[in-house]
């Protein structure tokens, strides 16, 4: 069960109406290494992983939904009052034709989200290594979006999200250390 707190994890400020930036940001919404993929990946893997790290997957998976909500708010603000002309100029003409200014789970090229972005292999090490890789890829994606963005208020929020990816990666690495720990600790070799 979840308890919902009706506020964002970190305040989202956007300085200008900028559909082009929204288009790049959508990568973190419905892209392969986006927040939706992350949340669903972790919350699904936790059923078949040793008890010691289930809580970690629950916590991080839940936080990814808080990030998804921040990304959604950013995209919404960037496109809220954009005219069809502005959407077209930002390369979002086809998006507008299907969705108006609504949000949709697709990547920045407009490819719809698919479950094949995520994996559950049932092997704890394989799954955790996938999670570490996913966090590093999301971190890199945030870097490239920050490079593309000229909105300092937005970048402030993106910087926060990138920092969280670093911490999540750290915690997954620690989970691997816990699982590979020698049982009983009577080492002979």
């Amino acid at each position, binding site marked *: 069960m979840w308890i919902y707190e009706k506020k964002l994890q*970190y305040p989202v400020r956007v300085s200008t109406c900028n559909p082009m930036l929204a288009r790049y940001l959508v990568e973190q919404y419905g892209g392969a290494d986006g927040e939706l993929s992350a949340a669903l990946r972790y919350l699904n893997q936790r059923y078949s992983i040793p008890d010691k790290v289930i809580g970690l997957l629950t916590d991080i998976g839940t936080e990814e939904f808080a990030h998804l909500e921040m990304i959604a708010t950013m995209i919404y603000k960037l496109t809220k009052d954009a005219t069809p002309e502005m959407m077209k100029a930002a390369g979002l003409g086809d998006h507008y034709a299907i969705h108006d200014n609504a949000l949709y789970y697709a990547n920045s090229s407009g490819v719809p989200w698919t479950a094949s972005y995520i994996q559950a292999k049932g092997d704890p090490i394989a799954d955790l290594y996938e999670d570490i890789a996913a966090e590093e890829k999301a*971190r*890199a994606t*945030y*870097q490239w979006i*920050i*490079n593309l*963005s*000229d909105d*300092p208020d937005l*970048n402030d929020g993106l*910087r*926060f*999200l*990138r*920092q*969280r990816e*670093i*911490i999540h*990666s*750290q915690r997954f*690495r*620690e989970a691997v*250390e816990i699982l590979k720990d020698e049982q009983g600790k009577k080492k002979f070799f």
Partner: protein
Amino acid sequence: MFTLYKTYCPIVGPFDPCNPILEKTYSTPPNLYIGFQPPNLPQFTPLEALRAGTLWKPFYDPYYNPFEEAKGGLPR
């Protein structure tokens, strides 16, 4: 000197069509180095931590684009 960003110099060919980038930088965040978090690491104050995105100073690694750095973005 320890740094969270590494650089390398890609080969520059005599006929490269784009203006060559002489030095490339990539991020190597602190999580690659610390291993299992040791006890008693220095902390931010709760208020600072909420803004930084982490409670732990050694894990803090903010990223700025070149435009922000030119305007005096906080140091890396």
